[in-house]
């Protein structure tokens, strides 16, 4: 009897809190979004699963000695995992379209306005009773507008680790929602004629240009914004391995096995931060609202900047490509292509949108560096 008693006391049934039960549902919702709705499944599946594991009473996944505890300490609080993912993303990125049309870097810059406006918005939200974001927390929330997962996780783990769970979930969820969030904004800010504009074919880019570019980007970063070098540096390392042509086996490993292994662990560790105590709070609602605002402002700023650019350009520029400046590679570029095709069935904007799209990745890494320098 005593043994059965011990067993019963070791079941979760009588130890469950309401909060844990709700977080299980949140985890299940994330799994549903990942599997059924295909919302960034590579991240949201492990995040959802990690959320469920972390909220099991008495299983101790998050306690010292638990699996998720180790993974988090080794990979997230050191910043190593998001940096390795960024290296892999760099190795997957083709800067060709950007190099062929460097002005699109301005679109990647404009879209970061979403980040900074949201930072301001988060601080303003403090006037609403119940909200009390610090400048660090506001910065971490704002980076959701960068539409770049590893950047958001890296910055948040430094500035506001207590918000890591909701911020990462918001970042990846909104990235998955880009096809729903962006088109209305894009259409509201452009006429059908503008959306139908065809752009000139991009010039071919030499291999040497592609090799020099990551080094130049690194060089400018280390000169002017050293706090951005962990992110930009690892991104450029991955890209250099890709383009150098002499270390293909390293580049392939960075793009495949290494990033896959790290993604599993990163997702689990991020999910482990989805605790009732931290997630089921008014702040989370604020974060979700602010994240949507950030994406919207970023999209709008990108489109408006593209319209401005078009005015001073000798060659035609379709303002839609500005929306790709938020990054969310390659989803945002695909959305641009789709909206362009709606206006003109012969108008293939995908390649033109890839320029601002990858510029947005650099742009948000730079924005993260700025935030680290100012409030870190």
């Amino acid at each position, binding site marked *: 009897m005593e043994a059965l008693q011990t067993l019963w006391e070791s079941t979760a049934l009588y130890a469950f809190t309401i909060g844990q039960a709700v977080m299980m549902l949140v985890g299940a919702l994330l799994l549903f979004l990942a599997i059924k709705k295909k919302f960034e499944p590579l991240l949201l599946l492990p995040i959802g699963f990690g959320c469920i594991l972390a909220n099991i009473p008495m299983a101790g996944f998050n306690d010292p000695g638990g699996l998720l505890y180790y993974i988090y300490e080794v990979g997230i609080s050191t910043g190593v995992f998001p940096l390795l993912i960024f290296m892999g993303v760099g190795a997957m990125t083709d800067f060709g379209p*950007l*190099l062929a049309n*460097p*002005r699109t*870097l*301005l679109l*990647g*810059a*404009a879209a*970061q*306005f979403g*980040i*900074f*406006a949201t*930072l*301001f918005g*988060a*601080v*303003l939200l*403090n*006037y609403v009773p119940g909200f009390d974001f610090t*400048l660090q927390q*506001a*910065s971490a929330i704002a980076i959701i507008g960068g539409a770049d997962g590893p950047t958001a996780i890296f910055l948040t783990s430094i500035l506001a680790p207590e918000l890591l769970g909701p911020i990462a979930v918001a970042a990846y969820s909104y990235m998955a929602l880009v096809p729903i969030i962006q088109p209305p904004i894009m259409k509201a800010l452009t006429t059908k004629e503008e959306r139908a504009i065809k752009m000139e074919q991009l*010039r*071919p*880019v*030499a*291999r*040497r*240009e592609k090799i*020099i*570019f990551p080094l*130049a*980007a690194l*060089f*400018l*970063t280390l000169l*002017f*914004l050293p706090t951005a070098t962990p992110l930009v540096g690892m991104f450029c390392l991955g890209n250099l391995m890709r383009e150098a042509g002499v270390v293909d086996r390293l580049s392939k490993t960075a793009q495949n096995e290494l990033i896959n292994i790290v993604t599993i662990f990163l997702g689990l560790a991020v999910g482990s931060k989805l605790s009732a105590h931290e997630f089921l709070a008014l702040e989370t609602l604020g974060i979700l609202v602010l994240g949507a605002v950030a994406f919207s402002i970023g999209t709008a700023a990108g489109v408006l900047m593209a319209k401005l650019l078009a005015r001073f350009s000798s060659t035609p520029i379709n303002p839609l490509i500005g929306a790709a400046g938020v990054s969310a590679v390659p989803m945002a570029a695909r959305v641009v292509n789709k909206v362009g095709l709606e206006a003109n069935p012969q108008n293939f904007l995908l390649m033109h949108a890839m320029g601002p799209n990858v*510029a947005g990745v*650099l*742009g948000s890494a*730079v*924005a993260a560096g*700025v*935030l680290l320098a*100012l*409030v870190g």
Partner: protein
Amino acid sequence: MSELVHEAAVIMAAGIITVFAFLILLIGAVKLIGLWFAGGAGSEAASRKRPSANANTQIAPNKLAAIGAAVRRYRDS
């Protein structure tokens, strides 16, 4: 509180200026790179692609067409 708002406004301004300044610098760098290194772009990019094009599109279609034709002849016969 209003101090925080003020700080946030300053960060917003300084931040977006810095991002623009940085990426404009990068545009300059890319243009320089283009001037210095793009010389052989057309030819180099082309020469790089041709072999793979050969391998994947020219030879293979030939082969496939020939095999397909041989197969059709066999079926017809």
